[in-house]
């Protein structure tokens, strides 16, 4: 999570003076430019842009140096003035997010003034010290890393959700305080999530397992029952990591993750970090790590090799993370909260509401993040908190949901027992949606990107010694 308290920005008065200077026709050409890259722009870029705009990251160009940044000056101006960048999609009327990536108006003004002045470099001596970014493409500087086996993603076809288990990479009781997941080929990863649970004798290590999901010729699930991966009984397929041999049997998978996937890679999601709120996820010694993988074919066969980085603590932080679906084995498994089987988006519908989700809070918790998830037809999502006295309050509205930027919106909202959360997704199945693969299709619930869902993910903290059992009941 980014701390904004250390932001370096020009005071507004100085900025206005700078803009006025650059606009003044009588300004002396021999005078130093008022707004320069090294003095004014570089601090803004360091704080807000370089995490993605540096070699090896997702940004299409580097902003580490003046020479690298200068050819993009006008495009940067356009992106920040229109607030297209940095990516942040929450309605600003609900300003309680502590990881808000939006630039302050003063920062936007600095960049605009710099570009309007011809993007002068200025004196390199004015530049702040370069940021010491972690090596290896990481953003969190992990204490330890774990590499998943190579996964060959075919050029075409449907890859169902798969699971694979490993011994957790910790030798003793551990608090995980942040996690970063780095796919080798991000373009083919729809999601890669994992969580921890006690080892069971029936859980094999290093074996991918998935259910056969009957589908029609367009890839849509034949039986839409509100689950993403088909029934828990049926044809089970297995493949050892590193092998191409797939075995089939009738029955149930050898293992599930009974709790919630605490950590995820999703397109556009940077990393999970509980350090700023002095919290963590407790992983007892001997736990298993259950990984859920969902790859999407793009037309190009590739081999993905994903790395996972952890920061950890042996000492218990003040608070512990409580996933939405409860702790392992103590609450219902990950069942969808809505009447998902009723989701049916008509052809060419521009603003179709999905089934409403309602979540009841059975005790006091601290809500610390939202991570709404829909697929390529997702248009908007609204979270409405209903207090015990009946008062309603919108706590997150994302008017322009974007599958390629699935952000976590971090906050700190104390929620009282007896409260409810209503979550409403809408969908755009029209030709106006440039990511819509087929506006003429009816779209129903399912786990593939051409199917739809509306998952109102949230995260909660409780005190480290709190009994979290039955804190939340979903319906």
């Amino acid at each position, binding site marked *: 999570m980014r701390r904004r308290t250390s932001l370096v920005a020009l005071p507004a008065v100085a900025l206005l003076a700078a803009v006025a200077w650059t606009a003044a026709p009588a300004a002396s050409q021999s005078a130093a430019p008022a707004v320069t890259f090294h003095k004014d722009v570089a601090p803004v870029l360091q704080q807000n842009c370089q995490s993605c705009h540096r070699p090896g990251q997702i940004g*299409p160009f580097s902003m580490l140096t003046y*020479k690298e940044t200068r050819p993009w000056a006008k*495009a940067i101006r356009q992106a920040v003035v229109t607030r297209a960048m940095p990516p942040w999609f929450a309605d600003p009327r609900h300003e309680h997010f502590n990881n808000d990536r939006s630039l302050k108006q003063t920062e936007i003004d600095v960049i605009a003034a710099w570009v309007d002045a011809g993007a002068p470099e200025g004196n390199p001596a004015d530049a702040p010290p370069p940021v010491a970014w972690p090596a290896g493409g990481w953003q969190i500087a992990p204490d330890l890393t774990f590499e998943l086996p190579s996964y060959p993603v075919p050029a075409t076809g*449907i890859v169902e959700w798969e699971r694979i288990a490993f011994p957790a990479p910790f030798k003793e009781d551990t608090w995980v305080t942040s996690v970063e997941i780095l796919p080798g080929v991000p373009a083919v990863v729809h999601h890669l999530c994992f969580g921890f649970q006690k080892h069971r004798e029936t859980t094999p290590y290093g074996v991918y397992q998935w259910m056969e999901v009957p589908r029609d010729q367009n890839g849509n699930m034949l039986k839409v029952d509100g689950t993403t991966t088909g029934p828990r009984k049926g044809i089970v397929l297995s493949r050892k990591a590193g092998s191409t041999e797939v075995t089939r049997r009738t029955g149930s998978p050898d293992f599930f993750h009974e709790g919630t996937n605490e950590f995820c890679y999703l397109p556009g999601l940077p990393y999970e970090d509980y350090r700023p709120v002095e919290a963590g996820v407790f992983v007892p010694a001997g736990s298993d790590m259950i990984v859920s993988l969902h790859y999407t074919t793009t037309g*190009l066969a590739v081999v993905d090799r994903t790395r996972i980085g952890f920061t950890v603590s042996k000492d218990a932080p003040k608070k512990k993370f409580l996933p939405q679906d409860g702790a392992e084995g103590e609450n219902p498994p990950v069942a969808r909260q809505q009447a998902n089987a009723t989701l049916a988006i008509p052809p060419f519908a521009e603003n179709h509401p999905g089934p409403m989700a309602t979540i009841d809070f059975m005790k006091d918790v601290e809500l610390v993040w939202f991570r709404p998830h829909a697929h390529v037809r997702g248009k908007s999502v609204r979270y409405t908190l209903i207090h015990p006295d009946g008062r309603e309050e919108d706590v997150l509205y994302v008017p322009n949901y974007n599958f390629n930027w699935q952000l976590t919106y971090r906050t700190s909202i104390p929620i009282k027992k007896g409260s409810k959360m209503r979550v409403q997704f809408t969908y755009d199945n029209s030709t106006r949606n*440039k990511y819509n693969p087929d506006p003429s299709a009816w779209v129903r619930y399912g786990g593939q990107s051409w199917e739809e869902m509306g998952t109102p993910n949230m995260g909660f903290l409780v005190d480290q010694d709190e009994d979290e059992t039955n804190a939340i009941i979903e319906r």
Partner: protein
Amino acid sequence: MTMRAAIVVGVVLLSAGVRAEQRDVTFNAADGFTLQGTFYSAPKGGPGILLLHQCNADRRSYDQLALMLNNAGYNVLSFDFRGFGGSRGGQYTDFSSQRQAVVDKMPGDVDAALTFLASQNTVIARALGVVGGSCGVNQAIQASRRQPDVRTLVLLSGGTNADGEAHIQASRQLPIFGVASEEDGGAPASIKKIVGLSAHPDSRVQMLKNAGHAAEMLAKQEDLGADIVIWFRANLPVGGYGLPPAIR
């Protein structure tokens, strides 16, 4: 090339060190004629972009743009039409004296280039884009008529024929970015007409001033290269989710 443009090329070359992998390549047109090009591969895989040069220059006029696109995650192929640059040989040695013969062969040369590009093992063959300059504008539009995997066009200072206009009008899924310089003869009107015909809501036109013709604009307006890269990132995503699923 101006001094400023040369500096920009140098900067891009330096910053390209992380990802750019470029190599000169040759491939044959259907009639066996050998065409020369430069292929810039995207190591993690990605869409492919074909660069079609204007008829008073060769593929080198796109060197800077190719590197910028490649750094942004794209596979890029620039090549010399027969009679230009490294593709001179046999009966095609001088475009000015063989104009009609060369133009007649251009569609086949473009098809060969698209086939070569799509066959590279880092290219998502169903996600292609084309940049065309001047006489390359019509070739880019005609290429998208023949090849449905061309999903967006960037057109610099040129026009098209009636078939091309009809195609643009009918292509609701083909966003077009058109650019011309205001003083450049009929180019601004041609580009405005093409973009105006486009049925895609995101298509747009950008008019520059005193920027020259086609790829010359890249040298005179150093921001244009960035605009083109941003266009492609928005309309030909390097991830797979801007595309229909590759079920079959």
